[in-house]
């Protein structure tokens, strides 16, 4: 049976909203504060499955 379609507009923060600030370690172990690191630039924030598999 096919899976019911999802409404991807309801997943995560919405268009028109301020992207919640996130703070995570990067690949060098340095903390990255997203909006600080953006430094006033436009940004693409990509969510993806593992880089390992």
């Amino acid at each position, binding site marked *: 049976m096919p899976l019911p379609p999802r409404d*991807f507009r309801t997943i*995560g923060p919405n268009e028109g909203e301020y992207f919640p600030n996130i703070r*995570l370690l990067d690949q060098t172990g340095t903390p990255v504060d997203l909006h600080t*690191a953006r*430094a006033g630039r436009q940004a693409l924030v990509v*969510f*993806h499955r593992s880089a390992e598999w």
Partner: protein
Amino acid sequence: MANNIALFAVSYDSVSVLREFATKHGVRYPLLSDEGSQVMQSLGLINERVQEDHAFYGIQPNPKHVNLPYPGVFVLDAAGTITHKRFHESYRVRDTGAGLIAETLGILDGGHGPEMAADGDTVSVRAWLDSATYCAFQQLHLTVELAIAPGFHVYGDPIPKGYVPLRVEVAPIEGLELRPMRWPSPHPFKVEGLDEEFPVHEGTVRGSLPFAFTAPPGAGDQVIRATVRYQACSASTCLAPAAVQVEMPVREAALVGRALPARTSGA
């Protein structure tokens, strides 16, 4: 990154996994480690149905397939506001970098794939792909741009019988999936002495056709062949309907970190 756009990639991998990946593939943008998936959880991005979905797609259960986000991207403007959000159901569907940037940020000079042009007296046609390579299931775009001489127009949809609207027909290839071509909305044009209004495009009109190759990896290099059909008219004359052929090669590329399977046929 080109055009001064910041790029961040978030996954649940540990710093050491990301470090290894970045070193191996020469990644210079931040790969952010959301080990434990707490940030993705708080953003509401976790695919709670991944096991069920994988069963549907025939993927065996795997303990690693928990707390995975839906694959997708947020585009932020300079103030940090979300201007676009693009998420895909399948982990196999990805946008090309150039396609995503072109479509969401309106940047078209960031370099793109193969291009063809056909110059005419009244209408010049340019067509290009947003990438010179494809991976299985990756979403690419064929962009077609018409430059129409002043005083002339081409027809959009819906169009009265007997007129040829602007159309792009792509020759079928096994595994090639086409989505609907998107054109800007035509505007009404009234011919003196006629009651009807015609939907027309004038000046420069650019349309985009999303497509993907859904054959399993190893299908090989492809050539996108398309026919652009239109009829150019002015207020007083109509030229004969025209058909411009465009051909653009696109090479198959392996997914990052994967090799393409060996070719078995001599195709």
